[in-house]
């Protein structure tokens, strides 16, 4: 991992304190994001992907404790930055399009005013006229007529609001844009329109983007790198082509099996039996062990380290057998055995 990364996360641990103990939502996660790259962060609900993103922006509640590791942004260690110190970076350098972004618009103000406000808070020197023109340029870029800057949020449809929020997140030209489930609430056609915009924008602006989602097809269509997260840890990180087509980690193989295909041949859908681990008392070894059809005794006791293979990194004890396991994983019975066991 080189210095060219805009964002470097090292062995980060973010744990939520509860009465029952610490919830290990983000547990020893290392990740580096190069300049001008789209990274997809995939995982099921509760796997810690949103916590990880909020940790970057320092918008976690006080019950979440930093218990090790570091975050380096653009060469500066921001691990111990306070909420206040982060103000200079938040939105300006790292912005976020949140899951419920459509509700992030204030219904009492014109959308244009809200975008201009955002610009003027961070760039004091910019006058109102220039800020408005800037906003108009971005509106055009996300595919909305700039005249509609004068509209109120309720005059926009869901897809347009989402695009307006994307414009708002990009308007300061940040180095990193985090999009948390940017299309989950939208229909296929509108989803495709939004994904198209995100990709176009990324090509025009040499920033990086992290797309957090549970939908691997969204990642496949917009990202070049993908990180698969499970139970607070990363399972596999690598180029989209590698990880989604020939995954090395059994969890990633399971995800690939579970995805219904629309155009290809109709294979039987295979779900991963069981449910995600309890993050207060996680398994001692690999987090995926309870649901993994290929578990060994070693998996139960020892936490697998991230190891490189080809161009990707995988945390699995049976990485060397990945080729064979991939074949086996296509068989439904392998997974069913685990369910009945």
């Amino acid at each position, binding site marked *: 991992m080189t210095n060219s990364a805009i964002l470097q996360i090292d062995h980060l641990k973010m744990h939520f304190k509860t009465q029952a103990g610490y919830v290990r939502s983000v547990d020893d996660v290392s990740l580096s994001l190069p300049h001008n790259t789209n990274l997809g962060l995939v995982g*099921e*609900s509760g796997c810690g992907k949103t916590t990880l993103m909020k940790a970057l922006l320092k918008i976690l509640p006080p019950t979440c404790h930093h218990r090790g590791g570091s975050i380096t942004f653009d060469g500066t260690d921001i691990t111990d930055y306070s909420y206040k110190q982060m103000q200079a970076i938040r939105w300006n350098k790292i912005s976020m399009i949140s899951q419920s972004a459509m509700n992030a618009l204030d219904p009492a103000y014109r959308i244009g005013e809200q975008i201009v406000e955002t610009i003027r808070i961070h760039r004091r020197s910019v006058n109102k006229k220039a800020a408005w023109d800037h906003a108009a340029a971005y509106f055009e870029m996300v595919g909305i007529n700039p005249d509609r800057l004068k509209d109120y949020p309720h005059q926009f*449809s869901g*897809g*347009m609001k989402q695009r307006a929020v994307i414009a708002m997140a990009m308007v300061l030209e940040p180095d990193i844009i985090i999009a948390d489930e940017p299309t989950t609430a939208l*229909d*296929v*056609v*509108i*989803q*495709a*329109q939004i*994904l*198209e915009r995100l990709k176009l924008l990324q090509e025009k602006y040499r920033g990086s983007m992290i797309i957090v989602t*549970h*939908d*691997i*097809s*969204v990642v*496949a*269509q917009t990202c070049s790198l993908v990180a698969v997260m499970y139970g607070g840890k990363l399972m596999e990180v690598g180029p*989209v*082509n590698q990880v*989604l*087509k020939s995954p090395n980690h059994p969890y990633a193989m*399971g*995800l*690939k*099996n*579970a*995805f*219904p*295909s*629309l*155009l*290809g041949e*109709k294979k039987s*859908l*295979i*779900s*991963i*039996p069981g*449910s*995600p681990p309890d993050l207060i008392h996680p398994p001692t070894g690999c987090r995926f062990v309870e649901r993994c059809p290929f578990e060994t005794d070693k998996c139960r006791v020892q936490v697998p380290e991230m190891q490189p293979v080809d161009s990707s990194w995988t945390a699995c004890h049976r990485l060397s057998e990945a080729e064979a396991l991939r074949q086996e994983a296509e068989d439904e019975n392998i997974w069913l055995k685990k369910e009945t066991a």
Partner: protein
Amino acid sequence: MIEENYAVRAVNLEKHFPVSSGGFFNRNQQVVKAVDGVSLEISKAETLGLAGESGCGKTTTSKLLLNLYPLTGGKAYCNGVDISTLKGKDLKSFRRNAQMIFQDPYESLNPRFNVRVTLEEPLIIHKMGDEAERHQRIISIMNEVGLKPAEQFLERFPHELSGGQRQRVAIARALILEPDFLIADEPVSMLDLSIRAGILKLLQKLIEKKQIAGLCVSHDLSLLRYLCKRTAIMYLGRIVETGPTESLIQKRYHPYTEALLDAVPHPDPDKKYCLDKIKGEIPSASNIPEGCRFSSRCFKAMEICFHQPPRPVVVDENHWVECHLYMSNRS
């Protein structure tokens, strides 16, 4: 009563909601045509898919079929009985026969009822069995939906269950009355990918085993492909194409079907979606375009499409389309 081959049949279902708009002095009554002439049939042990964008009227259609709203036009039959005429006792027995599974298992279960109470409620409402029999039924349905061992789940509240388990409870609640007709409204879209397949298979298995007529409402065609043999595509309150799911996907007769299929993002990074075949967003149901209702967004629209609404045309066995493209050569 007419001879009935289908468990559920709808003929020209219509639901128009009046809305008043305009200023205080200038009131003009507008009509939102949420459902505007929907006809469909479902046989026993069959699941029909109903797909379309949000706002196309698919949820309203399913609620009409459950007799939750009064119809403004058309007829709906369940086992040959016109459901809009049902009252009192007959209505109650229809309720027993027609059940629904909702999209969000977090919302559809009462947070104050544990699993046992949730499942016992329908039985108490319909006065089925004594306490011991009810208990027996609850245990057996829980085993059927895969909540095993049942005893371990009986006393749990919804917040103590995972999303998949909640949806299984919701399925158990719908099936415990042994209905003839089951509507599933986006049954897995709130669930994690890794467990979706399990729920889908469970639904499929139970619908076939119990000889239920199923209707699965979803915006996700790839999902319907796995659950339903036949699918109807809905656009702005009307069904524009109905046919076997597989041929619907392969042959893509209607331009809207084609556009929908092309917009679905693919999990393979090398295969790109395509957006060229559809423009803009779905128009409002209170302002439906003249002629063919898809004409304003259609990439194959012809002159006639803007003036005259198309009639359904049979294009294949069990497959019909409402589009002018096919009206001239086959009719």
